[in-house]
């Protein structure tokens, strides 16, 4: 995990430094803003990992001497077998997109289908 945090901090540093150099070399605002905002994403991920990702505690995955039984009984999560809601969500999105091009009458239909799919996914995740 420490590796990951260092990698993310390095990417943050690269974005921030190159963005700063870019500004003073070019005074071009679009590129500067793009480079600086790109640097934020790895910073956020690094922050999360430090606070919640078990960086201090250490996980069996990060222990080079760990044996497979170290993870025995570990709750990894639920892995659903199948779901039809993704298809529905995408059909709704396509309808929303098409409505912007072909006629706003389709927009409530598309939004409705998307809402249905999101609700369906939420309910499925509670099973």
């Amino acid at each position: 995990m420490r590796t990951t945090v260092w990698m993310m901090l390095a990417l943050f540093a690269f974005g921030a430094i190159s963005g700063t150099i870019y500004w003073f070399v070019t005074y071009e605002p679009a590129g500067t803003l793009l480079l600086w905002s790109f640097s934020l994403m790895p910073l956020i991920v690094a922050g999360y990992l430090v606070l919640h990702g078990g960086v201090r505690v250490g996980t069996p995955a990060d222990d080079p001497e760990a044996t497979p039984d170290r993870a025995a009984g570990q709750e990894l999560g639920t892995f659903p077998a199948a779901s039809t809601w993704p298809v529905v969500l995408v059909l709704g999105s396509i309808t929303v997109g098409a409505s912007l091009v072909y006629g706003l009458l389709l927009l409530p239909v598309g939004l409705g289908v998307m809402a249905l799919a999101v609700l369906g996914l939420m309910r499925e995740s509670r099973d």
Partner: protein
Amino acid sequence: MERPVAAQPEPPHRVGPVERLTSTDHKNVGILYCVTAFGFFLVGGALAGLMRVELTEPARQVVSTQAYNTLFTIHGTVMIFLFVAPFGIGLANYLIPLQIGAPDMAFPRLNLTSYWFFAGAGLLILLSGVASASGGAAMGWTAYTPLSELRYSPGVGLDLWILGIVLVAISNVMGGVNILTTVFLMRAPGMTMWRLPIFTWNMVVTAILGLVAFPPAVAAFALLFIDRRLGGHAFDPLGGGDPALYQHLFWFLGHPEVYILILPFFGIITEVIPVFSRKPLFGYLGIVLATIAIGALSMGVWAHHMFTTGVVNNPFFSAMSLLIAVPTGVKFFAWTGTMWRGKIHFTVPMLFALAFLLNFLIGGVTGVMLASAPIDFHMNDSYFVVAHFHYTIMGGSVFAIFAGIYFWFPKMTGVMLRERLGRVVAALLFVGFNLTFWPQFVLGLRGFPRRYVSYPADIGFDTPNLVSTIGYAVLFAGVVVFLADVAVSLWRRVPAGDDPWDANSLEWVTTSPPPEHNFDALPQIRSERPAFDLRHPELAP
């Protein structure tokens, strides 16, 4: 010696169509991605064929100019967003949990959703090519403004295209989130980041690139849509907007996108070469650091696509672009160092990997040439650039895709592909590819611009174009033989076993195909080659 068994072979079970389309198992989603993406390869290849026929001779006119402009627009869009990138993601979905010892990806339903967004995007993009009576989207996959503003591109094709790209972006962002969470948080005990297979490492960097690069492009396309349909002027000089701003936003995605198009495939090559050289990878740390460096640097080079605009600081971007050659060179030396003093087996995956090395070097060297702004003043927007990116994306990524297919098809299906037919495919594709694209360097140097439907006779463009079309015919033959290989192999069903290649990474420890939960029991992970360590415990670190 008795090898510990990671999984018991399961009775084969036929996957029905409904299950195929709704199962969230990462292996199923991976196969959906790969098969769909390959289908788009065939579509994009057919479009390319029409373009090549049109360009064979100056006088030949098989499609209208408007149709030709739509052809190259959709060809580029399909190959980039609907074939190469999704194929990489599909392979990642299939392999990452297996390579890190996890039962699935972190978010299986998000995974399936990202596939369906990709499929929906594909539908919209294909539609955009045929959508309106005046012709479909025909502005080039780069969609520069003001050409892509409403008054110069009035049909709905472009709008559908924008929506398709936005859906692809959503798909990529979902996939990126899934890949990073899975690799960071679901590795097996002992599978430290420094023991990850390089394919997985490369997917980590690819995922990060997707997460940071797609959002600005979505912003650009949203603004373009607002310009076109909602009265905006962000990019329209007549309303006080700036076409150059569009280029900055577009290429901020556009350049990392091409690294998204190559990094997974560097990963495939880095899996294949050590296996068939019977050696560990040379310079593992260097390759990982080089991959991260390539990812980082790729964010800072975007305006090398804008050298001739006069609105950017050329030396800054030239310097950054030249720098990227260094980590790429590190990878090349790691690959050759891996082969050095090895025992090289010329299996079909290895043949494709060798072809990759030969092709990609040319792509890389010509990229260094293009990174020089004054040289680019001549080469920009010419067929030299077209040849360069085909040498990297096709000579590189697509050849690696074929290496990956021949390598992992046995794992995914339990069945081997034909070795002899595979050699024929490799030979036809290698010869055909070079015949098609080497003459295009010549064309570019002589002054043939991109996106031209035709050319005057007898000014030096005739012969290279003819040779290039002949090359396409050879490529076409190669793809046909490949499809025949797949069909024959699935019919003959020569069983592959767990590990037909004596390979290195964790997926080869389990059955072919793996059971639903991937592993019944995990071996102890001692290095980046857990399968090898099981076969050679005396050599394990």
